[in-house]
């Protein structure tokens, strides 16, 4: 069972992010939770494409290569990381504007001040 430890790490990070989204009341902590969810999805993709003893899929000065890690999950994870960076920049900008408008970061306070 210890061989499947990376899958367990994916599950733990996923639930940490879900807990932060559901129970925290600070908007910054909710943003951290969303980033944790993205990190768990990326880690899951990378873990699925691993082969034991495989090297990185780059041929420059590779030496004696027996097997290589699958390249397609790595390419798609690269895409996902850049999109996650763009969305988190937009998310933090919106949080900054909310703080300027309401003067607080508490979700309950913002809901109470509606209107």
């Amino acid at each position, binding site marked *: 069972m210890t061989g499947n430890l990376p899958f367990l790490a994916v599950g733990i990070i996923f639930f940490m992010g879900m807990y932060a989204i559901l129970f925290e009341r600070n908007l910054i902590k909710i943003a951290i939770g969303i980033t944790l969810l993205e990190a768990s999805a990326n880690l899951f993709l990378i873990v699925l494409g691993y082969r034991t003893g495989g090297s990185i899929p*780059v*041929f420059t000065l*590779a*030496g004696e290569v027996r097997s290589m890690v699958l390249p397609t999950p790595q390419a798609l994870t690269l895409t996902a990381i850049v999109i996650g960076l763009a969305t988190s*920049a937009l998310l933090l900008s919106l949080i900054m504007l909310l703080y300027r408008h309401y003067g607080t970061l508490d979700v309950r306070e913002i809901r109470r001040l509606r209107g």
Partner: protein
Amino acid sequence: MNPLSVVVRTICDVFAWFMGIYGIYIIIHGHLTPGGGFQGGAVVATMAAFLLVSHGGKKLLSFAKPGFYSGIETAGLLIFITTGFLGLSATFFYNFLAGRGGLFGAVVPIGPNSGILNSAGTISVMNMAVGLEVIGGLSLILIYMFKGIRLFDDQTGGSETGHDR
């Protein structure tokens, strides 16, 4: 806010230029070593972050206006799309330069080798284009979020207190 100490400013000055050169290395060697346009562009944008932290926004904007970064970003995206369209005689995004000789078309040996810099055809061109786009975009995001933080202190938004003298 108190201005940052002279130690922080000196270290940030030194490592900002190191980060710029290292990021450009990652972009140019994107088809030989791990890395590429996105990663190298993010590393170059770290240079803007260092200068912003140590000297404040006025020093960075005295180098180049925001329009300069916006132009870099748009030029990168346009070069990328144009390179995609140029291969349209076969398919969209066809690699029409690979293996033809010339500046980008050296033929690489099969199997593990020591790498040839002027190979890989349009992949190298697209690496540089995407690197330009990421440099401009991330620098713009950093500059404008820094301006947004400064707007809290005084609603006029122009002057920065302390932090750069």
